[in-house]
């Protein structure tokens, strides 16, 4: 008979020390500089010696088979040590320079790409989409796959003016940081929640639901004596806050859900301060499995940026230099009333000077 082992809680993650390559431990906190030897290949120099990093693409949504294959390669080439980046790339940490080429070949044989360093498009951070989330206005994994199939050459090379960060989120909850990416692809609903008056009274607290709406669009009401809510459609901006607290108010609408494109955000402090992404294209249709309208729009933006920005200029810095009118012109994007902010502090985005380009 198996003896019951004591149930453990609150043990937290294991100590990172045991996962650091011995060479990393010796150089810990003493690194002097790094060099990029080739796209996806870095050398970090420290007093105890150099460590070589090979950065590899990953779809992020993976199987144990994928990880097992990665770990087999780690055992073979990097003494079993590897890590993941904040953008979900895999990084092998090699003590021997001679292992770089054979590892690259095996990685490529697995159908993975080596790259994502310096002036490249790194992996796309993204969310769950139709694979796993109730809120999604589009799929995330499919969009990423479709877009990166088109842009793979920018992952495996370093020919862009600066690094370019792409992110995908499948609804306004934005589980990924799309609000500060060079290019963001954001799933949008375009119609108000569809209230299920049958289940709402059982599933949702009316005051909480009413309070959840940032635009005060929700009012308590009663239908045939049953308490429920109604939505003032004029005021609804399809943000999905109500749905988060009340499952009886879904927003999914196959006819109208789709994708918007945002540009010019940035996180790192280099040269200019962090910036939010701004709306470029208010709506493109959901067209799975390949979203051709989205991929071609994103590709166009990447190409005009690549052709026109100065070295080290991020997308937002480039647009600030040339001005938004010229950006819309070059990108061939129609400027519409949807581009004018009408939420809190909207006025701060209006032109309040005569600094315009004609």
């Amino acid at each position, binding site marked *: 008979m198996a003896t019951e*082992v004591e*149930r453990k*809680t609150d*043990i*937290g*993650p*294991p100590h*990172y020390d045991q996962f*650091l390559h011995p060479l*990393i431990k010796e150089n*810990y906190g003493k690194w002097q*500089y*790094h060099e990029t030897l080739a796209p996806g290949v870095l050398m970090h120099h420290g007093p105890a010696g150099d460590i070589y990093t090979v950065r590899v693409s*990953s779809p*992020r*949504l*993976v*199987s144990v*088979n994928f*990880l097992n294959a990665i770990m*087999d390669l780690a055992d073979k080439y990097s003494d*079993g040590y590897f*890590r993941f*980046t*904040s953008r979900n790339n895999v990084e092998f940490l090699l003590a021997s320079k001679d292992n770089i080429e054979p590892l690259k070949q095996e990685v490529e044989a697995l*159908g993975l*790409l080596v790259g994502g360093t310096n002036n490249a498009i790194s992996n796309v951070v993204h969310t769950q*989409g139709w694979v*796993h*989330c*109730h809120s*999604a206005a589009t*799929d995330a*994994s*499919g969009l990423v*796959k479709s877009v990166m*199939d088109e842009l*793979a050459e920018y992952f495996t090379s370093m020919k862009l003016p600066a690094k370019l960060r792409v992110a995908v989120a499948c609804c*306004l*909850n*934005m589980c990924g*940081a799309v609000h*500060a990416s060079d290019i963001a692809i954001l799933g949008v609903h375009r119609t108000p929640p569809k209230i299920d008056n049958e289940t709402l009274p059982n599933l949702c607290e009316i005051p909480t639901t009413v309070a*959840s709406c*940032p635009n005060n669009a929700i009012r308590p009401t009663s239908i045939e004596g049953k308490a429920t809510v109604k939505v003032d459609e004029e005021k609804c901006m399809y*943000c*999905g806050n109500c749905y988060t607290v009340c499952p009886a108010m879904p927003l999914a609408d*196959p006819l109208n859900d789709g994708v918007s494109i945002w540009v010019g*955000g940035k996180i*790192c*402090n*280099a*040269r200019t301060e962090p910036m*939010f992404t701004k709306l470029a294209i208010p709506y493109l249709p*959901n067209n*799975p*499995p*390949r979203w051709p309208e989205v991929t071609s729009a994103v590709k166009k933006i990447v190409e005009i940026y690549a052709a026109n920005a100065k070295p*080290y200029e991020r997308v937002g810095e480039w647009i600030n230099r040339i001005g938004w009118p010229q950006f819309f012109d070059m990108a061939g994007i129609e400027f519409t009333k949807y581009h004018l902010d009408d939420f809190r*502090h909207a006025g701060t985005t209006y032109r309040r000077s005569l600094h315009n380009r004609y």
Partner: protein
Amino acid sequence: MADDLKTPLLDELEQGPWPSFVKDIKSMAGKKEMAKDLLRQLEKSYEDKRGYWKHGGLVGVMGYGGGVIGRYSALPEEFPGVSHFHTMRINQTSGWFYTSEALREITKIWEEHGSGLLNVHGSTGDLVLLGTRTEELEPTFRALTEKGWDLGGSGSDLRTPSCCVGPARCENACFDTLAVNYNLTHQYQDELHRPMFNYKYKIKISGCPNDCTAAIARSDMGIIGIWKDDIQVDSKAMADYVDSGMDVQGLVVENCPTGCIQLDGKEIRIDNSNCVKCMHCINVLPKALSPGKERGAAITLGAKAPIVEGALFGSVIIPFMKIEEPFEEVHDLIERIWEFWDEHGTSRERIGEFIERVSLAAFLEGIGEKPLPQMIKAPRDNPYVFYEEYFAEEGEGE
């Protein structure tokens, strides 16, 4: 096995140079009904252009209020394999370092107890195990804790803190990001597992202003490395850059946001009193330049995505503090912040929205910090000041 699996739309996503998530899910479909029905349901989503998941359910492991996201198919009869498809978030290691030995234990457990599918990693940083049934949650949890792994957060609690690679493989790190990340994750296990906050609280830790974890945009609390003294210059390496023919003037000097760099032949002169620590020159000339010696971190508060009141970047609350073992000053600050937010925040109010509502001045007073000019871009430009001190007529004062 795959013969009864018809997914013509998804099959198209097996083509092309970028690695395919469809291939990966398919690789599990032979073994797991769950993976197979996930593909079938996703194919239907691709046909119908809508998701088929129900709003999250209320499941978890005993005693914890976070770490498990309940998920049920809206079409359980059609796709019984995903009638339950819960997610478990696992605390990742500091800096996302692993050995194959350790991670193999997790893949083994997950192949036994779940779908065999995962996200490496989730947006917050956790290792995300995607898809299992309610009755498997507790056995999976036991198997994981047996091997030394624990669940992350979800709901109104502290989420698993995450940090950049820092001193483990980056010359720019201004403090030990991995150590403080590990320390905070352990120090606040209770806050991680038992939601007591008004809403979620994310901590991200970056070793320098390059901010590789996006702390300024994605964390309620960012700990971002910074230095106070002069940028360190290796003049020999600097001369080598110039000798190599690199356009230091165009690429570095002219890109400095405050114009505080001068190139004098092969020598670089930096007016450090005007340097805003943006990292540009150090990024371009890594062999010649590095952050100064008086290092620590700035603390930012309040970043978040748009829900509910619009997106916010973090704002600087502590312009500089030392980040040193045993990190008691960091704990003290975190606890002062939580206490004030607990007491005065409202339901679903993130710390950033809270500070905007009560005002930065009231917030600073509440946590016992003094206002400093480094906390703002500019002083107020409206005259509606709430004066608290004024003179009373003589004889009438207290």
